């Protein structure tokens, strides 16, 4: 059994909140540059140039890429041979509180969905625990903006809807979102499980690098096919027309019930933020 202090967890979460909000990952930057090179429509080229200039300014000045610094989604892989001295849960919330204060990040969380009073420190974090073998804790902070979150959808398809039903639903969600989620977007798709697990898979899919593919060739091909179909819609950067509507489609899947085919589509904008650290 390995002991880890709760304060260590707080420190890591604090750092990751700031890092994720101010610096996009290299895979994403490379993908945006590659899309800029392929884009033929002048208006779209101009928007992609602004996006590139924007993340360069954020890198240089250590400022948030986007003013919606999101809800702090925190994925925690806890090794089963780890003992945390103190409350792991409290330590994570404290890290978010410190990170959003020190990083001059926006506090975007209300304490109740209906009375809508701001909590003032961006807590609580949305925490997803996963128990894994080993004596380490891996923490991933993925601040999620709501312009794109609001355009996400879930559907309980019938087994007979099959592959075609999944494709149609993903395209319908992207079409309905149109310009609202600040395209170019990253599309996370969760297939299978239960109602809630499908949504979780879709969110988790957004953590995968945009230069990766699903490990199974069938799903890797489906990711590419959906991306091509989305980019044939013509919505384009900001919805002003163009090829680059999406940067990547990432799919995660799991077993499901004989009666069901849940599909969730979690949309992210080009500011697809996530940073990880292992303790």
């Amino acid at each position, binding site marked *: 059994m390995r002991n880890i202090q709760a304060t260590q967890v707080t420190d890591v979460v604090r750092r990751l909140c700031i890092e994720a909000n101010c610096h996009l990952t290299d895979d994403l930057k490379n993908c945006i540059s590659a899309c800029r090179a392929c884009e033929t429509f002048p208006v779209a080229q101009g928007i992609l140039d602004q996006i590139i200039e924007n993340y360069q300014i954020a890198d240089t000045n250590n400022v948030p*890429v986007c*003013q919606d610094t999101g809800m702090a989604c925190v994925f925690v892989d806890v090794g089963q041979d780890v003992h945390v001295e103190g409350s792991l849960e409290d330590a994570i919330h404290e890290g978010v509180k410190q990170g959003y204060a020190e990083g*001059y990040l926006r506090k975007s969380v209300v304490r109740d969905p209906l009375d809508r009073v701001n909590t*003032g420190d961006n807590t609580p974090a949305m925490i997803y625990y996963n128990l894994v073998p080993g004596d380490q804790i891996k923490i991933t902070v993925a601040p999620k903006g709501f*312009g794109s979150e609001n355009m996400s959808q879930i559907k309980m398809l019938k087994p007979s809807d099959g592959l075609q039903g999944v494709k149609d639903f993903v395209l319908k969600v992207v079409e309905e979102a149109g310009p609202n989620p*600040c395209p170019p977007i990253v599309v996370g798709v969760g297939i299978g499980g239960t109602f809630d697990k499908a949504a979780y898979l879709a969110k988790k899919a957004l953590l995968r690098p945009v230069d990766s593919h699903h490990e199974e060739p069938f799903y890797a091909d489906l990711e590419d096919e959906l991306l091509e179909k989305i980019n044939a819609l013509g919505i*384009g950067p900001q919805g002003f027309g163009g090829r680059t509507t999406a940067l990547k489609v990432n799919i995660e899947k799991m077993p499901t019930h004989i009666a069901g085919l849940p599909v969730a589509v979690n949309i992210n904008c080009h500011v697809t933020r996530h940073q990880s650290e292992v303790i």
Partner: protein
Amino acid sequence: MNKKIQTPFTREDARSLKAGDTCLITGVIYTARDAAHKRLCELVAQGRELPMDMRNAIIYFVGPTPAKPGQAIGSAGPTTSYRMDAYSPALIAIGQTGMIGKGKRNAEVIAAMKEYGAVYFGATGGCGALLSKCIKKAEIVAYEDLGAEAIRRLEVEDFPVTVIIDSEGNNLYETGREAYLQSVQGEA
């Protein structure tokens, strides 16, 4: 070719712009998003005075990040505009002439824009670090308790926007997409 806009932004100015025009705004604009719009419209409904003059005003739908020391404002890109659809027609009716945001608007907003003469501008979503460089001064004029959602008076210089919907109801989201799809027709 960018068109220069100097505030105050009159109804005549609004009517002179066309969907797809790229513009640079200089002068004073105000920030407001969901919570501030709700309060403003409550005041309008009660016939009470607003914390700023809505005549010839441009409202920017934004909730900035806190300013770091030495900054006028933190990152400040647009938020999605449809959440303000319930409120914009009432504000356009009392003189608001410009809105800056991103994303679709509903039929009621577009009808009010056509009736009174107003423009819906888009700023590039997700580019808050870039856009903040055009904001030279920011001060809270109302609703400080709302934090990022407080109403701020911004002094902007050459703030870059694109006309998405003009005062005749022409919509760049429709025409831009069509133009792109036509440009690639016959390829592949």
